């Protein structure tokens, strides 16, 4: 059975990737799963300088989901390259680095430094809802998004470039198209949905940041719809993200048009989620008598 999928110039052994911000730098999961089994690891977003993140409480639970406002806490480019990347390199899986900046220059510097270190891919984070300068301006303004992507594309040679799209738009297909036209090799969606929860006993927001990003099974139907819309608008591969808890959910995204999927919140509940999803996909294909996973990508029937 062939689970191989291609994202731009990258050949993934299977379509299961980790979602940025939920998988640390890989190490936290190595005691639970064999990292070699993953299609790709997308690491926690990296900025040029370290960021300390938001004050607590940073997370809260909501029905079938959770809100987070971590605030892009990360160790910065230098320490990532020195301390974390060498570890990730030991595994036979693709390493994709999520990057974030305040200016196009920031993104370019990050992308170039990472290409020099020969990471397998770069995912542009233009959609973190939890910091004022989290690149969200690029995620919500089509012109800015186009300029950012083409700027980064021109500054690097062949490293895979993925743009992670922001879900708060009524026309995701337009953002998808801009990403494609500006030189992105793939798009990933959706990032968390801006949301809020209030403690009615004390009349205060449950998060210190007031608002946060909603993730988990609660957002999956929204994500499936957006993946479907985006995949019909572009030819580049779409990576489906949003509340994938098991292999059924992963297959749903692929039928909607996703070439690969990212597992996020599920990792927190069950650190073995990713490998269980890979096994589950294999079982499903066997049951359906399908030998090649690409046969289910966008295979949704309408009538």
């Amino acid at each position: 059975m062939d689970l191989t999928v291609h994202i731009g110039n990258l050949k993934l052994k299977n379509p299961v990737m980790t979602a940025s911000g939920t998988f640390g730098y890989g190490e936290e999961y190595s005691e639970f799963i064999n990292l070699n089994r993953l299609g790709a690891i997308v690491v926690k977003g990296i900025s040029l300088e370290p960021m300390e993140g938001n004050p607590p409480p940073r997370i809260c639970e909501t029905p079938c989901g959770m809100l987070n406002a971590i605030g892009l806490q990360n160790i910065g480019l230098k320490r990532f390259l020195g301390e974390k990347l060498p570890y990730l390199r030991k595994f036979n899986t693709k390493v994709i680095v999520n990057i974030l900046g305040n200016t196009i220059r920031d993104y370019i510097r990050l992308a170039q430094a990472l290409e020099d270190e020969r990471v397998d891919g770069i995912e542009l984070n233009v959609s973190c809802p939890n910091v004022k300068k989290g690149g969200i301006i690029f995620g919500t303004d089509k012109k800015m998004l186009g300029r950012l992507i083409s700027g980064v594309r021109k500054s690097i040679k062949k490293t895979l470039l993925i743009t992670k799209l922001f879900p708060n738009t009524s026309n995701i297909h337009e953002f998808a198209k801009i990403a494609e036209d500006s030189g992105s090799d793939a798009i990933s969606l959706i990032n968390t949905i801006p949301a809020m929860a209030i403690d009615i006993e004390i009349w205060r927001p449950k998060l210190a940041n007031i608002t946060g990003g909603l993730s988990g099974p609660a957002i999956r139907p929204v994500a499936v719809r957006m993946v479907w819309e985006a995949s019909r608008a572009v030819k580049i591969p779409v990576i489906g993200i949003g509340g994938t808890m098991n292999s059924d959910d992963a297959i749903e995204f692929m039928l909607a048009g996703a070439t690969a999927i990212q597992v996020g919140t599920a990792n927190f509940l069950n650190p073995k989620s990713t490998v269980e999803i890979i096994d589950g996909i294999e079982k499903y294909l066997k049951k359906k008598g399908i030998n090649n996973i690409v046969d289910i990508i966008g295979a949704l029937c309408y009538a």
Partner: protein
Amino acid sequence: MSRYFRAKVVSNLPLNKKSNLLTLRPLERAKNPEPGQFYMIEVGNSYDPLLKRPFSYFRKTSEDIQFLYAVRGKGTLLMKDFMEGEIINIIGPLGTGYPKPSRGYIAVLIGGGTGIASIFSLAERLTKNAYILHGAKCREELLAVNELKSLKGESFICTDDGSFGEKGTTVEILEEILTQNSRLKTQNLIYACGPRAMLEAVSKLAADKGIKGYFSLVEYMACGFGACLGCAVKTVHGYKRVCKEGPVFPIEEIVW
């Protein structure tokens, strides 16, 4: 030996109106916990509530791990329905527990409410004399009173309303002990787990008297093993994860 494993509910006994003693038996080989470490317990297999819940372990017997929990919300309410024989997923032992008291120090252990669970695991291990303080609002909310009596060390029990033990708070008892011991030139080391107000008061007292110690903290967390960065607490060295660098932190490093 994976820290993610299945366990069987051996018993889930109500101790009072609010709290239960949960006994779990690992179905796979599991690591032994150190005092102050915790486990993430699955409360249900629908996705609402979504996340596992963190609990310090109370006792480790040769076969079982025991937890004390109070019903506070949706998750703990579901735990109250755990039936004997039920199988659940848990992760642990997690985090960094209490360091042993160094030579020459007499430990003062303070457990406020269910905080006694985390303290108890340490108290059981102590080989020399110590003070063990446990307080709650009223008699009904005290926990493990009989178990405390069986420990090596002098135990003090108090309630806010005086319905059992001394009337007053653990902080008042702590102050008495520290004052008395400073005359005797005994060096004390504090270990505490409990409500935030209690910990803040203990921290002030410790700072005033120049006494060191450790607190076990609690914060909302999604994973429990260092990945989500949700459980950050502010320390003098920046944000630290309750689940990894903690839950136990030196008192003087915590920024309130």
